[in-house]
């Protein structure tokens, strides 16, 4: 196998729905709630059961274990039994010989509800005391005694909308009966252990009776961290009852109606600055729309609080988050995991402060950037800080002040076409904020022909983790990467894995691979030493070296002689991120192994006659440490940015009384080819990261937040047209919102 991408271009990479279908396969179709909140008075599945081709209709009482899929908080049923909490909540599942038959049968299910009052707005839910769990507050210094020392104090509201993942491969699962009640599940999940654990709870069996195997995902972006689980559990439940293989692949419409998205937030902020523009105090109350169940909401809320000050040092901070329970599909992880929502608010507050003080946004940003030794409001010290370095480099690379002046001149000379420019620095903490999740295992096998097989807990979903793992192994073993195969992720090979999430996939699993490879290298060196009766053995570029000189022992020979010497050529290794801890009572600690930094400059053009816009150019200086793979990191930087821009601009979820009216790709619009700006990515030089494998840095999520720069640039352009009107900090900034800002209706 030459590279890992060629099969993609040939359409030969296998996703769940491409797996050759086993004989006797049953197709599952899910029947869901059509009302946002109500009691189930009666559920009649008799007609559906008798429908042609139907093998079984699963309902809550068919669950042999606990009807519970909540992970952080146990508050979500797999199949609603007595009460439905949102439109799209699974109630029953039809298993039939064909998908069409299953679908037809769902139409024959009769259900009666007693409707109950619903709430859809996070602030209204908070007012009614409807919270997923208690509120959470992080604080440093004393904001109350600081306000009076500030030259300027500003308050406002910032709103950011939800976001649909639109992973192109919809949620999918295939479960196959094995012998002795064991079940093998192929799932499009970022979290095989979660699928395994939850399925064992549903079936009331031991985890060792469930094997979850994952080759790759056709995109995930957080949407398959917790949200992949129910579909896998449903398939397994089907296998349990029928002893036949069961497949469930959601259609796009089903997927959008039934699965969680990025959390919308509504936030009150208050910011205080001195006369020079130093931020002295910041206060924010985040109302997170958590949806109808916890899912990952509390953790997502936590990260919004951690990143509430973005890349700035603020001595006095108090930020509070409320996870508000509403009757909408439970919201979930999405690239950035609350970080973008947190950063959006502080950037709005700074932009607002710039308007009031007359100090340019970029000046306020630069003045307050983090420096070595500063302390975050959660207690961690700032180390290896690249905030100012990336900021000043992008300012220099883009000739920012000159461009800004040129844009001002352009705007003076053009009536309906206005340009805008912005700077967006980021600082994103790397590690799961639940410290225990920061662990990983790897299994490295060297076959006697010298080929290598590696299993870890990492899931390949397009982020290139397999390319990175292969690079780490090739470098550590000092062999050609083509010898190395990255296996599927299986709960039978590597156990108790954390989800591939929080940008940590390569960091955690890569480190485990490095440790395992080093174990093997040590054993091989000993074998070579024995063979050559010599010390000072090293392995370089596929050969054994003795005293710095190449011997005749190639990698293949070496492996074979080690085998004959009865050396263990299989190594298991474990890695747990050191130095991280967090005290959730005091809300202080060192939750992150390190931080990723960077800064982007965005230029946009607004057509102020039509209210439409073009994102012209984004230039970023990003801190990727010592990159493990340039093309992969470049792809993450560019792709993350585009998703972030989508979140800030055209991606709008339209809910009407809990019903999602944007449940297709013709109504929910994601960035396309022409939407893409010219992007220039520069990776910060000399940015070796001592805290991660081979001095690299995580890159999956951080670039997403450069998208906020597009919002700020659009605001500048729009305000060049309407200088007199107050700006409402509300994202996404759709063409509709923009036009309604540019003009007043009579």
């Amino acid at each position, binding site marked *: 196998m030459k590279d890992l991408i060629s099969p993609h271009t040939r359409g030969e990479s296998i996703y769940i729905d491409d797996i050759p279908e086993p004989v006797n396969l049953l197709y599952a179709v899910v029947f869901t709630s059509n009302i946002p909140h109500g009691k189930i008075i009666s559920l009649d599945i008799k007609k559906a059961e008798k429908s042609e081709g139907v093998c079984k209709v699963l309902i809550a009482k068919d669950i042999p274990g606990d009807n519970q899929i909540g992970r952080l908080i146990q508050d979500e049923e797999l199949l609603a039994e007595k009460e439905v909490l949102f439109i799209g909540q699974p109630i029953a599942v039809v298993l039939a010989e064909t998908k069409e038959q299953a679908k037809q049968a769902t139409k024959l299910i009769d259900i009666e509800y007693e409707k109950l009052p619903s709430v859809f707005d996070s602030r209204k839910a908070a007012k009614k005391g409807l919270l997923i769990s208690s509120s959470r507050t992080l604080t440093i210094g004393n904001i109350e005694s600081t306000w009076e020392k500030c030259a300027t104090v500003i308050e406002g509201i910032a709103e950011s909308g939800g976001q649909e993942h639109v992973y192109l491969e919809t949620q999918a699962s295939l479960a196959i009966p094995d012998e002795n009640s064991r079940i093998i599940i192929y799932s499009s999940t970022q979290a095989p252990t979660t699928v395994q654990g939850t399925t064992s709870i549903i079936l009331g069996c031991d985890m060792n009776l469930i094997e979850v195997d994952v080759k790759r995902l*056709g995109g995930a972006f957080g949407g398959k961290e917790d949200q992949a689980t129910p579909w896998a559990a449903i398939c397994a439940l089907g296998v349990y009852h029928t002893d036949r293989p069961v497949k469930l692949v959601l259609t796009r419409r089903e997927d959008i109606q039934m699965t969680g998205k990025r959390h919308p937030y509504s936030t009150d902020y208050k910011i205080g600055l001195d006369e020079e523009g130093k931020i002295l105090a910041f206060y924010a109350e985040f109302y997170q729309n958590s949806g109808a169940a916890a899912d990952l909401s509390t953790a997502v809320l936590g990260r919004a609080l951690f990143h509430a000050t973005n890349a700035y040092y603020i001595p006095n901070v108090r930020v509070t988050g409320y996870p508000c329970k509403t009757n909408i599909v439970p919201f979930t992880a999405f690239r950035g995991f609350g970080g973008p929502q947190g950063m959006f608010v502080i950037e709005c507050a700074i932009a607002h402060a710039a308007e009031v003080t007359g100090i340019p946004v970029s000046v306020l940003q630069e003045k307050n950037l983090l420096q070595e030794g500063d302390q975050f409001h959660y207690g961690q010290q700032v180390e290896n800080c690249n905030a100012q370095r990336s900021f000043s480099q992008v300012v220099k690379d883009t000739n920012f002040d000159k461009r800004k002046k040129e844009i001002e001149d352009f705007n003076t000379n053009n009536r309906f076409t206005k340009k805008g420019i912005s700077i967006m620095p980021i600082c994103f903490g790397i590690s799961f904020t639940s410290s225990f999740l920061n662990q990983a295992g790897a299994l490295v096998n060297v076959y006697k022909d010298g080929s290598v097989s590696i299993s870890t807990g990492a899931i390949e979903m397009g982020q290139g983790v397999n390319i990175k793992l292969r690079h780490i192994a090739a470098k550590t073993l000092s062999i050609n990467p083509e010898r190395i195969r990255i296996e599927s992720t299986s709960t039978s090979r590597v156990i108790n894995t954390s989800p591939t999430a929080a940008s940590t996939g390569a960091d955690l699993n890569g480190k485990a691979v490095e440790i395992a490879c080093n174990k093997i290298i040590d054993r091989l060196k000993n074998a070579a030493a024995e063979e050559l009766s010599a010390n000072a053995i090293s392995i370089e570029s596929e050969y054994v070296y003795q005293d710095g000189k190449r011997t005749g022992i190639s990698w293949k020979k070496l492996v074979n002689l080690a085998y004959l010497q009865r050396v263990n050529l299989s190594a298991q290794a474990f890695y747990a991120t050191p130095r991280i801890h967090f005290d959730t009572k005091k809300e202080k600690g060192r939750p992150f192994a390190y931080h990723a930094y960077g800064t982007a400059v965005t230029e946009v053009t607004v057509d102020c006659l039509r209210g439409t816009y073009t994102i012209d150019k984004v230039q970023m200086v990003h801190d990727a440490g010592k990159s493990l793979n340039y093309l992969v990191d470049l792809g993450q930087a560019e792709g993350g940015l585009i998703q972030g821009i989508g979140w800030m601009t055209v991606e709008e979820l339209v809910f009407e009384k809990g019903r999602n009216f944007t449940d297709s790709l013709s109504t929910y619009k994601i960035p396309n080819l022409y939407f893409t700006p010219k992007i220039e990515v520069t990776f910060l030089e000399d940015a070796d990261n001592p805290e991660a494998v081979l001095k690299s840095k995580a890159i999956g999520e951080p670039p997403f937040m450069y998208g906020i720069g597009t919002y700020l640039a659009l605001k500048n352009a729009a305000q060049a047209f309407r200088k007199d009107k107050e700006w409402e900090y509300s994202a996404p900034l759709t063409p509709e919102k923009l036009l309604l800002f540019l003009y007043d209706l009579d």
Partner: protein
Amino acid sequence: MMKFILNQEIVKIDEPLGNSTLDFLRNKGMKGVKEACHEGECGVCMILLGELKDKNVEYKAATSCILPLGEIVGKHVVTIEGLNQEKLSPIQQALVDEGASQCGFCTPGFVVSLTGFFLNEKLEKKDILTSIEGNLCRCGAYAAIIRSAEKLAKEISVEDKKSQERIQKLIEIGILPDYFSDIPDKLDKLKESSSTKLLKEGTIVAGATDLLVQQESLSDPIFLSEKELSGIHLDGNYIYIGATTSMEDIRVSEELNALFNTKQDISLVSAYPIRLQATLGGNLVNASPIGDLIIYFLALDAEISLKNERDGRIIKLRDFYKDYKIMDIKTGEIIEWLRINKKERLFNFEKVARRKYMDIASVNSAISFDLNNDKIQNAHLSAGGVAPVPKYLGKTSNYLENKKISEDIIKEAVKIADSEVSPIDDVRGSARYKRLLLRQLIYAHFLTLFPDLEVSI
């Protein structure tokens, strides 16, 4: 029994012709053809469709999800599997080299679309991105995809080669497998033996790019594409456009581009592979209140010919639409053609959607008029998304007649237009946004046609 060629193999099937080609292909084991939306929005199911025309095979890209099986009868269907050779093609290699594939789910679709680009004689080198505008990549690898495409356009030159000669050249440079050279003969033989029964009654299909979005399969389809209703020609004072002329053929039509900026205007309509499949007639009878081509031709004062087996009639397009999806069309009647006067006139088309390209408009509008001694004559103004029907703004058009263009006139026109429309809140925007947008687009018409016009808005 129907026949077609699937990659190298002649396939005979006996399935309902209204079924989706994607569903068929995946059931047939073509797993490189992916499904992600089933409504022609994302391009992961892209295939090439080759049709024999005078001994040559003309290929076009098509989203197989909304392509009924009836449309592939007697044709060459090419999936990613049919493009794969032992070595990667230069297209596949370029995508690998630039890091243009992340999760990989969209990648086969991009490969197929880019292959279609090199097969297509109507697109120029600079238009290579047009060929992939109907492909979405959620990982957002667009920057790398653009780099790959531009590199390919730079390195591969086939524009001097036509038809089979071009195919030979593409085989030589490894973009197509050898077997493509045998396809014309194979298709020719297929033509003789292929027999499809045409139904007399059923759903009339002319592209199906919306029908198969609304329904999973079509019952009793009658394929208009098999009747000779396609093509654009001049006759007397008119430009005639056949009902089954594709949107893309309309976009690049020399006759229309001689008079209007059709190439640019219609690039805002849908996406390239859909425009290749969708037809004028389909757009007209679909009667969407936001139908782009309807709005376009309403403002050009178009007429349409309706005919049944015995006789025909010609009516103004603006008289065709009665109420939401209700038209002046009788059972058995089909639209034969649309015609517009070939005279020069001032014309402008505007469309605003959430996403500029490949999206359904919030509001669209078009205007045409003559200018005689500075006075507006023969004014026709249309607007979509503001009424249950694609709206011909008759009162506003009448008001503009014989007026000299001034700020006051436009202001008054805007007011009258506002009184003629009744937009509703929906997923494309709020009613108040649509009213505001219509006002802006009317100003945009005049400011586009007369950039020096002084108006305060």
